[in-house]
């Protein structure tokens, strides 16, 4: 099984396919592996001689070599029958063709993102691609990020440091970092020509690398000697330059083991990717997706709420209406009681016989006013009650309140008619004469009998006088009694009228209120029924969904388990891939 096959298998996994980032990583890797190119990325700190190393390796001045910081963009050099060169400008994608001689200048000029070079070189045959990168200064600068981007695509890394000093802790740290990105790192010590102690530095560095637990072979080279060797064609000088070891590494390790490198890269990538995906799947297995169950619970909660609401609004309507009726009755009685009190006060003094007509008008006004006010108040209270009940329902299920259809009590008032005039006629003259005579007769008789005892005749001046006085007195007493009677009659008449009115109007409003109650009940019952229907439906659907979901979930869990098993198998294949040679 080749690396490509395993990657393809990984890409076919639905669990991996769902992760765009991972598939793109694997696709990139696949593209790179399918491409026979073997990318060797040259990295290192500032001024370590990376570009000169590349130039010396290829025997051409492609990369900029300068005493100041020279390279600001990577140069990608591959095999070609005919030399060619191109650069990518910032903000552009396409390659812009340039002269081979200009490449170094363009790269140090800083106005390119990347340079691409093709040239006929034996070392580049077999798909070897050499990438020279800008120096790494700390792990932050712009140059550094470009270098790290190249490093991510590397099949092999040449980590360059000069032989003038031992590896610094920073350089060791960078080496360790490079091995985490690419498993194939070769340490290259440059400038051996300048360093009298390069051999001891090489030994010391080998020790440092081993102490750091890194499996990085080291070679020491001199680019200057290599260039000399290439210009003179001397194999001795070439051997002296240390380059044969480097070229040997490229040929025997990098190229020859390209298949192994590819398998290793693929293996590591797949192990990393499956690790991530498996973690996600295991996490999914352990937590159940509760979304549809939540839907059912929600519907059931809503139904329960509705049941409680329904009981509540019915109670509210009943209680509210009972209260309203007694309140309305009380209100009417209160209003009329005040009118009656005024009437009593009026008739305590006035003679109804004289003021009756005037009084009738006043009373009619007062009563009409009281009845209408009571009616208004009733309507208002009823609306308020209806509103309160409606508030027990949701905003949308409330609907518009029905027309309550209150009947105006005007008809009652009309039917009642006016106040019946009681008998208020004052007594006639004959009546008064008789009353007067009756008084004077008894007076005259009383005093006549008394004076006759004194020997006076029965009718004398005393008895006649007494009779006259007594007659007048009787007459006055009779007149007062008459007034009192008329006043009482009038009061009774008014009382009876008002009672009748209260009874009639009360009956009317009770009837009206009962009707309103019926209407409200019908209205809200209808609303509640609609709501209930909707809820029942949603509960049914939620239940169906939950059932289906349970099945789906079981199915999903099964799928996940299968996927995990497949991934485990895939991981085994990936591990095997790295081990086969």
């Amino acid at each position, binding site marked *: 099984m080749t690396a490509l096959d395993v990657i393809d298998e990984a890409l076919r996994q639905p669990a991996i396919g769902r992760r765009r980032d991972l598939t793109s990583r694997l696709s990139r890797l696949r593209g790179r592996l399918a491409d026979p190119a073997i990318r060797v990325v040259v990295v290192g*700190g*500032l*001024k370590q*001689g990376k570009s*000169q190393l590349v130039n010396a390796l290829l025997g051409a001045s492609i990369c900029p070599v300068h*005493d*100041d*910081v020279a390279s600001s963009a990577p140069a990608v050099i591959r095999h070609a029958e005919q030399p060619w060169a191109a650069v990518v400008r910032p903000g552009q994608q396409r390659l812009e063709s340039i002269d081979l001689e200009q490449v170094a200048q363009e790269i140090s000029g800083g106005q390119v993102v990347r340079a691409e070079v093709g040239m006929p070189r034996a070392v580049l045959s077999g798909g070897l691609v050499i990438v020279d990168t800008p120096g790494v*200064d*700390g792990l*932050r*600068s712009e140059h550094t990020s470009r270098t790290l981007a190249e490093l991510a695509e590397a099949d092999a890394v040449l980590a360059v440091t*000069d032989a*003038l*000093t*031992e590896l*610094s802790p*920073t350089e060791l740290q960078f080496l360790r970092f490079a091995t985490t990105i690419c498993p194939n790192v070769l340490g290259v010590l440059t*400038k*051996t*020509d*300048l*360093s*009298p102690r*390069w051999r001891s530095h090489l030994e010391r560095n080998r020790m440092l690398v081993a102490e750091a637990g890194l499996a990085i072979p080291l070679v020491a080279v*001199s680019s*200057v*000697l290599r260039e*000399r060797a290439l210009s003179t064609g001397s194999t001795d000088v070439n051997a*002296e330059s240390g380059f044969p070891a480097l070229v040997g590494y490229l040929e025997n390790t990098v190229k020859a083991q390209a298949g192994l490198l590819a398998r290793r890269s693929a293996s590591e990538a797949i192990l990393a990717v499956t690790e991530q995906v498996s973690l996600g799947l295991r996490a999914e297995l352990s937590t159940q997706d509760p979304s549809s169950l939540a839907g059912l619970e929600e519907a059931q909660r809503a139904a329960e709420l509705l049941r409680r609401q329904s009981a509540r609004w019915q109670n509210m309507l009943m209680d509210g209406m009972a209260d309203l009726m007694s309140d309305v009755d009380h209100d009417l009685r209160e209003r009329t009681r005040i009118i009656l009190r005024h009437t009593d006060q009026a008739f305590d003094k006035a003679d109804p016989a004289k003021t009756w007509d005037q009084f009738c008008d006043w009373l009619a006004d007062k009563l009409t006013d009281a009845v209408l006010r009571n009616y208004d108040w009733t309507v208002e209270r009823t609306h308020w009650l209806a509103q309160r009940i409606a508030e027990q329902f949701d905003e949308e299920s409330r609907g518009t309140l029905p027309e309550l259809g209150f009947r105006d009590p005007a008809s009652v008032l009309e039917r009642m008619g006016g106040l019946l005039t009681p008998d208020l006629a004052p007594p006639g003259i004959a009546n008064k004469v008789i009353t007067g005579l009756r008084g004077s007769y008894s007076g005259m008789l009383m005093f006549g009998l008394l004076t006759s005892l004194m020997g006076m005749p029965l009718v004398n001046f005393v008895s006649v006088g007494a009779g006259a006085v007594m007659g007048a007195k009787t007459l006055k007493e009779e007149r007062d009694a008459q007034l009192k009677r008329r006043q009482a009659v009038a009061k009774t008449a008014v009382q009876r009228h008002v009672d009748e009115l209260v009874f009639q109007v009360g009956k009317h409003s009770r009837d009206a209120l009962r009707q309103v109650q019926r209407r409200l009940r019908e209205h809200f019952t209808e609303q509640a029924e609609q709501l209930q229907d909707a809820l029942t439906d949603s509960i049914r659907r939620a239940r169906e969904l939950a059932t289906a979901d349970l099945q789906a979930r079981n199915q999903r869990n099964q799928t996940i388990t299968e996927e995990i098993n497949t991934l485990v198998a895939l991981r085994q294949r990936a591990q095997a891939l790295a081990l086969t040679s």
Partner: protein
Amino acid sequence: MITQEVLTEDARAMLEWALRLYRGSAKAVNFLAQQRQLFDEPLRVGVTGRAKAGKSTLLDALDEDDFVEGHTSDVDAVLHLTGPVRAEDRQALQGNPLPVNTIVVLARADELGGGRVDAMTSAKMVARRLRAEPELGELCQDVVAVDGLLAVAGRTLTDEEFDAVAALAALPREELDELVLSTDRFLNPSLEDVVLRQGLLERLGLFGVRLSTTLVRRGYGDPSRLAAELVQRSGLNDLRLAVQRHFTERAPVLKARSALVAVETVLRAEPRPDARGLHAEVERIQVTTQDFRELRLLAALQTGRVELPSEIAAEAERLLGRGGTSPASRLGLDDDQDHLQLALGVLDRWQAYASNPVWRRAQTDAAKTVVRTCEGIIDTLARAAR
């Protein structure tokens, strides 16, 4: 200048005051007493840099007693050694409160150029570029390229060594080229005199061998001329000049600054209410002393905190003593002719700047500081004339 003497006395008085005030605290007294002792000693320059940056070689080359390796406390000024200037160097310099007391040295400068004969020329160009780089300019006063090994060799070249170099230079051109192509070849044990060559390589480095043989071929035929040329090429003279301009000429100011910083350190570490008067006095000296004003304005101009029109910004920095504090270097003149007339002209011009209504407050304040500097220059020149 007379103000520098006043400043020195003021700074010493501050140290004494602090010593009296803090006599109860053994730690503070120890520190202050040490500072007072240092204050009476010559200017101390610290040499810092990464391991293997060439610090000890440079110290050998400078051969100055008052230059110490390592730590930056207890010193008045700093030489920071670096190869190619890296992020970590910038970080190391970042904490520096007053960049005017730091010079960055590109040590082992020959290696930058791959040991070619023209490597030092190239390194000096890199130094010039870095000096002009605003980012680094903020962090130091100057950037100088030095090859310490070459400088040491130049200063101490023996006749035997010269003879060995001359013998090498006498070899046929191609033979010599092959020999100095790499250290391995140069130390080829199958050739004779390998011990001698080994000694030469230790002393000069491959670059030094290449350079000195080339120089002998070009006619530097006797030891003293070759030695002088090696020292010249090593950049050591440039470094000495930079130290002279930036450190030695300002020594009293830098020493006073160290003393005042020391007093402030104690005041901050152990604040106490009865130290208020001392605190105020230290601040007064720092604010009113013209030399401090110059240092601060110089730093402000270099860091861009204060910006002057570009055509006069360079002149301002020069007058403030960026290139040295002698009247001649402040005025940008080579010899000590009658500078007075010219100085008066400069003063008039800067007085005009100081009252320029278009300028912002910070700019006119800067111009006023420069005016005071010009007055100081004229004063010095007038004294000298008398």
